[in-house]
C-alpha cells in the first residue's frame, strides 16, 4: 500500500502535553507524528483561552496559554515533529508485528509502533444547536462546515450564528446560493466589523436577509429540509424557505472514536497505570487530561510528568533489548547534541 505515513510514535492531540511528549520521546531518539482536529497546535490553550495567564507552570510565575504553546514548539523544534491538522483519528487496528495502523476521518493511514493519546477533553467538534430533530438532517441538508461551495449552489440557505464563520460564509455563499438568510439571536456580532458592515450593505441591496432570533423548528422529509422557523425576532414567528442550513455554534469536546477502541474507560476517561501511563492495551498510552488513575489531577504539569515516564516505556517497545541510559540534559553531551546545543 502506498501513502502510508510511518513513524515511531503517533500522538493523538497536539495540546501542551502532546507537544511535550515529543521532547521526552525525542531525547530517546523516537520520531513523532501528531494529529489534531484543530488547524493549529496548542489544543485548549490555543483554542479556548490563548490570552489567559497560567500560574502553575514550574519556573513561569505567569505565562499566557499561547505563550506556553509557543515555548513548547520552540523546545521541541530540534526533534522535527510532523503535524497533521484538521483531522480526527477514526479507527485503530493492531498489526501483526505489534504496531498499529491508524486511519483518520479523511482516510490517511498511519503506522506507528506506539500510539499516545493526548487528546485532553476529547476532540473539538461543532456544537449542535438546540433545534428539535436536527439530527435527521445532518450530513444531508444541515452542515457544520463548508467543504465545497458548489454544494450550496441554487439552495435556500439559512446560516445561524454571529461569529466570523457565520459572517464569512454568509458573504462567500451569497453569490452561489438562491437565497441567504442569516439568523443570530441579537443584533450585535462577534465577527469582524468589516464583514458585519458588508452584510448590512448587502441587506440594504436586498441581496440577503438578516433576522434576529433563534431557529426553533425545521420542516422537511427524508433528511431534506424545506423550511426553518425563526422565533424571538421583532416580526414574531417567521417561516423561511430553507434547503440547506449551516449552524455555527462553536465547538464542544467529545471523546469521539477513541471511545470505540476497546480501551478500559473510567467515566469517559482512559484508565492508565501510574508507572508507564499505559492503557489496557499494551503499546497504547494515554497522557494529560484524557487519562485517569487514582489521585489524577488535570494539570498541565501532571501531563508533563506523565509523558516523561511514558517515554521510557515507549522506548522499550520501539527498541526492545536496548539499554536505556538515564541522562540529564544539563550534563549529557549526547542529549545536548540531539537538542542542537552542543559545541
Amino acid at each position, binding site marked *: 500500500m502506498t501513502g502510508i505515513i510511518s513513524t515511531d510514535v503517533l500522538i493523538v492531540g497536539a495540546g501542551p502535553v502532546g507537544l511535550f511528549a515529543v521532547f521526552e520521546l525525542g531525547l530517546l531518539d523516537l520520531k513523532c507524528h501528531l494529529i489534531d482536529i484543530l488547524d493549529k497546535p496548542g489544543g*485548549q490553550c490555543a483554542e*479556548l*483561552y490563548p490570552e*489567559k495567564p497560567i500560574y502553575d507552570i514550574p519556573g513561569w510565575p505567569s505565562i499566557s496559554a499561547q505563550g506556553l504553546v509557543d515555548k513548547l514548539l520552540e523546545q521541541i523544534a530540534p526533534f522535527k515533529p510532523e503535524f497533521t491538522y484538521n483531522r480526527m483519528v477514526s479507527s485503530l487496528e493492531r498489526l501483526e508485528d505489534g504496531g498499529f495502523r491508524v486511519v483518520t476521518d479523511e482516510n490517511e493511514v498511519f503506522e506507528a509502533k506506539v500510539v499516545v493519546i493526548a487528546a485532553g*477533553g476529547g476532540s473539538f467538534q461543532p*456544537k449542535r444547536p*438546540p433545534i428539535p430533530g436536527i439530527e435527521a438532517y445532518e450530513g444531508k441538508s444541515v452542515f457544520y462546515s463548508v467543504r465545497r461551495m458548489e454544494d450550496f449552489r441554487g439552495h435556500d440557505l439559512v446560516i445561524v*450564528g*454571529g*461569529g466570523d464563520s457565520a459572517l464569512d460564509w454568509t458573504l462567500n455563499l451569497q453569490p452561489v446560493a438562491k437565497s441567504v438568510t442569516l439568523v*443570530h*439571536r*441579537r443584533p*450585535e456580532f*462577534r465577527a469582524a466589523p468589516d464583514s458585519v458592515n458588508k452584510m448590512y450593505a448587502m441587506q440594504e441591496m436586498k441581496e440577503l436577509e438578516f433576522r434576529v432570533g*433563534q431557529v426553533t423548528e425545521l420542516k422537511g422529509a427524508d433528511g431534506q429540509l424545506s423550511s426553518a422557523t425563526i422565533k424571538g425576532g421583532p416580526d414574531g414567528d417567521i417561516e423561511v424557505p430553507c434547503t440547506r442550513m449551516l449552524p455555527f*455554534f*462553536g465547538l*464542544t*469536546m467529545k471523546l469521539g472514536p477513541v471511545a470505540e477502541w476497546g480501551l478500559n474507560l473510567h467515566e469517559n476517561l482512559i484508565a492508565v497505570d501510574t508507572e508507564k501511563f499505559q492503557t489496557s492495551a499494551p503499546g497504547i498510552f494515554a497522557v494529560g487530561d484524557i487519562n485517569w488513575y487514582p489521585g489524577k489531577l488535570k494539570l498541565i504539569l501532571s501531563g508533563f510528568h506523565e509523558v516523561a515516564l511514558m517515554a521510557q516505556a515507549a522506548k522499550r517497545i520501539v527498541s526492545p533489548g536496548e539499554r536505556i541510559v538515564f541522562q540529564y540534559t544539563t550534563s549529557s553531551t549526547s542529549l545536548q547534541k540531539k537538542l542542537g546545543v552542543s559545541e
Partner: protein
Amino acid sequence: MTKLTFIAHDGTHFDVDAENGSTVMENAIRNAVPGIEAECGGACACATCHVYVDEAWTAEVGEPEAMEEDMLDFAYDVQPNSRLSCQIKVRDALDGLVVRVPERQG
C-alpha cells in the same frame, strides 16, 4: 458567607454557603451541582456554566459584559435572564440568590 441556591433541572435545590469573591460557577462545582460543566475552568471561553438567574435577582446580578454576551451565543436555549455563572462574583448583595440550571449545556 453568602447563601446561594441552585435549582437543578430536575427541581432539586442545592443551598450552599459561598465565599464573597468566589464565582457562582466555582460554588456549583464545589457542591457538585449537576448540569454545570465549566469545561474551560472559568475563563469565559466555553458557555458550559450557563444558568438562568431568578427573575427576582436579574436587576441585582446585572447584565453580562460584551465578552460574556459573545460566549452566550454558544449556549443552549438562551433567555433574557441567561448568564454564565463563572462571570458572576459572589458579594453580600447577592445573599439569597437563586439560579436555575438549564436542561443541558450546549
